């Protein structure tokens, strides 16, 4: 008899606790809705497969351009800003691929 009463009390307490939790969650729900909405962060539209700015993607048939690393080894004539002053007349006939291969031929 006593056990039965204690069980009833325990069940009642458990159910009441659940009701309190439910009540609190229902009350909190509209307040949490205040979190809906925000500001677009700068650059957030770029997402997915993005590489850091220092990395250059190596694709099929393209030679990686690690220019900084080989700056000292590039012939002075090739670094001129104005293409018409370039002494080598043959260089203009070369494709980019051939030019780069020439540049790094020594390595």
């Amino acid at each position: 008899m006593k056990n039965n009463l204690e069980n009833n009390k325990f069940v009642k307490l458990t159910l009441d606790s659940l009701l309190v939790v439910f009540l609190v969650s229902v009350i909190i729900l509209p307040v949490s809705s205040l979190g809906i909405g925000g500001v677009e962060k700068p650059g957030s539209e770029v997402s997915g497969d993005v590489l850091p700015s220092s990395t250059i993607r190596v694709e099929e048939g393209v030679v990686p351009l690690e220019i900084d690393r080989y700056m000292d080894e590039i012939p002075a004539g090739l670094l001129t800003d104005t293409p018409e002053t370039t002494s080598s007349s043959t260089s203009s006939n070369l494709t980019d691929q051939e030019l780069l291969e020439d540049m790094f031929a020594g390595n």
Partner: protein
Amino acid sequence: MFSRILIKLIDQSIVPAIMLVTARIISLVLVARYFGIEYTVGSQGIVYSDAGGYVLVNSYSVFIMVVLLSVGIMYILLKALLFHETHIAPHLTARLFSLKLSSVIQNSFDLYSQGSIWLSYLYLILLTSGVMAYYGLIYTWVFYVSLILTILTSVLFVFDVENELDLHKGSTTDKTEEFILEFKE
């Protein structure tokens, strides 16, 4: 088995909760459209293109929520002050029954459970608007308006509770007076 008060409180809290969430979502969209602020709806919710636009929309949205809550509480207070079953005027009772509006007359348990739930929503939104105003997410006037409305509704609610307590005291005094009259006889 279940606590009657808790069941009643949950019952009373569902309608304002749905109303507030709906008001929030609709107001965010409508206010943005009204002011011509660009927004996108995605996995992160409603995202606005600039911070100024977000503050504007957020302020008006919170303001609309507070106004809706205040209107709800005013309706409950009106029922509590005029149509409370403990102190409703007899002619008003007769008129309400003739208009088949007897459901407007409510007892203290219904009124006070409703009032406490709606007031707790108002307090929570006041608290949140205070934090938002502090961090510059809404205009400060929204917080001040919320504060004034909260104080006003709380005071009116307390007045009604005081009336109710006075009535209970009065009924006890009446019984005492009746006893004295019998003693005199």
